[in-house]
Each structure stands twice: as structure tokens, then as C-alpha cells.
């Protein structure tokens, strides 16, 4: 990580540790789950140039697997989280292997189609509870701390988010990340330099799916239930919106985008009802038309221009 990013990361972490004294912790945890989801998605879209349009399937799958592991198999909390993450990564390997054979819009369509297949499986499968969802998932304990207590759980969620965020940053700034950027920038050139680009794309896809899964698993723990909504293509669309709004290919963009969207939905849901969807759509249109680099991207560009003028 560059020094500026490290400082922002540490400041953010301190703010997160203090947040529950001011803000309802469940809301912050929800924001963090979606922020992690969006950061994982950004690893693919922003740094590899792959638009997966079925990413919610990983969020949803991990939610169900973790819920089932905790509720039915009564596994320890951490094992349950791990099970969800691994399941999502494995599904990512299957969907990724099929999708990376195509490029651009066809890649997006393949991911969407496969995600829809899994969605209908969840709708019909007996263990998911169909439209009712998988309810009454116990949070369990961690190192003797009862996670039914929101504050205890809150610090676990912050730790998960902080570690995952660090891992994503590390991946972006790793030898592997360099090759991902090369593929994003000029795929034929990367091939002509001897890189088997399919393998790099697949690993990026699996990493992203696994981290999206960790977000879904954590979300199940927070809300004590896994829902069909998380696997729905609406959620796949929402994560695109979060990433674009915040700024794709920027470090903090997805975090900012997820915060805005989740907070807005939370605040507006009981005030304007189903108009929320219209407002989200309007935000998307404005974002695409007026500030394509997203909030963080545009701010960085503005900052660079100001620095440039001073010199």
C-alpha cells in the first residue's frame, strides 16, 4: 500500500472502532458487508477489467451455506464463516472457468445466466426455505464471547472487513496484481509476452468470489438469516452501482459507494417505499452521465489538477 492509502486505512479503522458509540452497529455492519462485497467486485471490474453480472450469487451461496452450517450442523461460528467462503470460491471456480472463455458483454451474460440458474436452484431447494429464507441462524460464540451481543459481533465484523480489505489491497499491489492490470490494459500484448491470461483471470475470479462469499457469510451472521434477495440479480446490479458510484478501480471507491447506497436505502425505505428503486436508478443515470470516474475517482482527479496548478 502507498503511504497515503495506509494512513487513510488506519484513520478509517479508528473511526470504525469508535462508530458504535454514535451509530446503530447493525447498520454499520450491513454497510461493511456490502462494502466488502463491492471491494471484491472491484477487484474484478476495476483491476482486471472483467464485468461479472452475477456476483450476487456468491454473496447468496455463502449466506445459505454459512446459515446451514451454523443452524443445522451446529458448527462453530468461524468454521461456518469459512464454509460459506470456501463454497463461494468453489462456485466461483466453476462459473469462472466457463465464463472466462468469452469476453466483454458475452462474459457478463454468461455470468448472469449461470447466476440465475443457481438462483432458481435456491428458490426450489428445500434447505433454503424458499421465499421465506433460512431463518433463526445462531451467531454462536467466539473465544468465549457471546456474539448474540451486537457489540461483540461488531468487532468481529470490523476485523473481518479490515483483514479482507488489506488482502484486496495486497493483491492489487502484488506481482499477480501487476499481471491483472496488464491484462486489463492490453490483453493481446499480455499473451504475446507469454502469459496464459485465462489462468490469471480465473484466479482473480475465484479470489473475488471467495471474498464476496465472506461478505455474504458475515451478513448472515449479522441478520441471523439468509435470504433469496442476496442471490437475486437485483443485488448483482446494486454492486455494479456501488462500485461505479464510488469509483471503479480506486481503492476506497467501492467502500464509499456501498456506504451511500446502503445508508440511502436504509433511510428512505420507510419514507418513500418503492420509490427507492426510482431514486437508485436516477443516481445511476447521473453517475454515468456526469461523473464517470465516480465520487472517489473524480475527487482524486480534482485533487491532482489542483496540485498541478500550484506547481
Amino acid at each position, binding site marked *: 500500500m502507498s503511504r497515503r492509502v495506509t494512513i487513510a486505512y488506519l484513520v478509517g479503522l479508528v473511526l470504525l472502532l469508535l462508530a458504535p458509540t454514535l451509530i446503530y452497529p447493525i447498520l454499520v455492519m450491513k454497510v461493511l458487508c456490502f462494502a466488502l462485497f463491492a471491494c471484491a467486485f472491484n477487484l474484478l471490474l476495476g483491476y482486471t477489467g472483467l464485468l461479472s453480472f452475477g456476483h450476487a450469487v456468491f454473496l447468496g451461496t455463502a449466506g445459505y451455506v454459512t446459515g446451514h452450517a451454523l443452524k443445522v450442523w451446529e458448527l462453530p461460528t468461524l468454521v461456518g464463516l469459512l464454509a460459506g467462503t470456501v463454497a463461494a470460491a468453489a462456485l466461483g471456480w466453476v462459473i469462472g472457468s466457463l465464463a472466462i472463455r468469452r469476453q466483454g458483454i458475452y462474459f457478463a451474460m454468461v455470468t448472469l445466466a449461470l447466476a440465475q440458474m443457481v438462483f432458481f436452484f435456491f428458490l426450489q431447494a428445500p434447505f433454503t426455505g424458499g421465499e421465506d429464507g433460512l431463518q433463526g441462524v445462531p451467531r454462536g460464540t467466539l473465544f468465549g464471547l457471546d456474539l448474540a451481543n451486537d457489540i461483540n459481533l461488531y468487532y468481529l465484523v470490523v476485523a473481518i472487513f479490515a483483514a479482507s480489505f488489506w*488482502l484486496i489491497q*495486497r*493483491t492489487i*499491489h*502484488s*506481482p*499477480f*496484481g*501487476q*499481471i491483472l*492490470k*496488464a491484462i486489463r*490494459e*492490453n490483453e*493481446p*500484448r*499480455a*499473451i*504475446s*509476452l*507469454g*502469459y*496464459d*491470461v485465462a*489462468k*490469471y483471470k480465473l*484466479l482473480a475470479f475465484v*479470489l473475488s468470489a471467495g471474498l464476496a462469499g465472506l461478505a455474504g457469510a458475515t451478513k448472515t451472521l449479522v441478520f441471523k438469516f439468509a435470504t433469496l434477495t442476496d442471490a437475486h440479480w437485483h443485488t448483482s446490479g446494486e454492486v455494479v452501482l456501488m462500485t461505479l458510484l464510488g469509483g471503479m478501480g480506486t481503492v476506497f471507491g467501492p467502500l464509499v459507494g456501498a456506504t451511500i447506497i446502503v445508508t440511502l436505502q436504509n433511510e428512505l425505505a420507510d419514507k418513500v417505499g418503492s420509490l427507492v428503486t426510482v431514486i437508485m436508478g436516477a443516481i445511476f443515470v447521473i453517475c454515468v452521465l456526469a461523473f464517470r470516474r465516480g465520487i472517489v475517482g473524480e475527487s482524486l482527479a480534482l485533487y491532482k489538477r489542483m496540485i498541478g496548478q500550484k506547481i
Partner: protein
Amino acid sequence: MAEDCILETTGLVKEFRGFVAVNGVDLKVRRGHIHALIGPNGAGKTTCFNLLTKFLEPTRGDICFNGIDITREAPEKIARRGIVRSFQISAVFPHLTVLENVRIALQRKLGTSFHFWKSDRSLDLLNDRAMELLTSVDLQDCADMVTVEMPYGRKRALEIATTLALDPELMLLDEPTQGMGHEDVDRVMQLIKKVSANRTILMVEHNMKVVAGISDTLTVLARGSVLAEGPYAEVAANPLVIEAYMGTEVDELASPAGH
């Protein structure tokens, strides 16, 4: 004399839905030569390049590199064998720095390209070699520049440095001087001459001055087939070639030093 041939194609054919772009090309590239591939637009030069580097699958025919049949290999495998190509439109990674561009080519040898948990500082040990390569194409002062901000001629020089980073036995350059001003053309011409030591170069080139100036052998393609092959003077005198190049191009062939 078979070992003198680094690359040999026999009866290479590429058909696109009834249109034959490359029609039975037998090409022999001799080790250590600068071999130029010329021909009017649509003659199949770039298609040939794409076949040789397996960016396209040949319909028929064989490609041999150093006596090994590589006709069915994947493009990245071809690159690892030592055949590295450039592209007609400058092939750089625009939003990476100039130094990073060269490092991408160097880092494969480290074997850590899948290590997502490692810091990219582990790549810094390649910086000296990358700077050497940049110096060899006179780009040492641009190392930290974001590539997209560089002028066109320098991007092409960077592309050559990146290709050189793999130390290829055979370099394939697709129109290395296309779209350049006179000064840049001279510079790139000297550069190609310089890097041709200890390696073989096959290039597609339209600029007759470059072809006459540095190529050892010349193959003329027309409508997907080889029209003539040999040293420049011999080929330029060939009536078939003169006929294929109508109008001004005839003058260019006859008096390459005229520009």
C-alpha cells in the same frame, strides 16, 4: 542447411468463410537475418503474423520453429519458445508507468506472477535490468512517466524495449515505423539494426527506405501468396513485383534513397 532456418512454413493457408487471406505460403526465415515482409494492402502480411504467433489458427499447413512443429501450440506458449511479436497499433500498457511496462515482461521469469500475497516491492530487483533496457532505446528519462502521456514514437520504442526484455530468438515487428515522422523512422531503423545482433527479425514494413536500408532478405506477398523472395536489389528489379506495386510505389521501389 536446415539448421540455418529458424522459422519455416510449408503450405500455410488461412481461409475466412470462403475468402483466402493466406494461400499456400512457404516462408523460410534464416537465422540472424532481418527479413522483411512487404506487399500491397490486403496481401495477407498481418494475417501471416497472426498465424505465426498463433493469434489465428491456420486452416492448413505447418509452422516449424528451430525444427519443432509449433502449428498447434497456444500463443503464450509460442512466446515462451522465443517468438515475440509486436503489433501494428502500438502495444503498450497505457496506464502503467514506462518502467512497469518493461517489468511486466521481465517478471514472468521470477515465477511469482501468481503470488497475490506478496508485495510488488519484490519486483524492484528487476528495476536495474528494466532501466538497462530503457536506456538501450533511449527512454531512461521517462521511466516514471505514465505511458499514455508519451508521444507515439516513444511508445513504439518502449514496445521494442518490452519485447527485448524477453530476449527473443525471433522478433516479429508489425510495421514498426508506421505513422512516424522522418526523425523517428531513422531512430527506430537504427534501433532495429542494433537489436538484430544475435537474433532474427521478421518485420512487416511499408517504408521502402527502411526495407532497403536494413533488411537482408525480402519476401513480397500479393493476394495471399509469395510473389518474389530474395535480396532487395533482386526483388526490386522483378517485373512481377513492379506490376503489383502500381503508381508511386514503383518509384519508391526503384529509388529507395529518394526520401
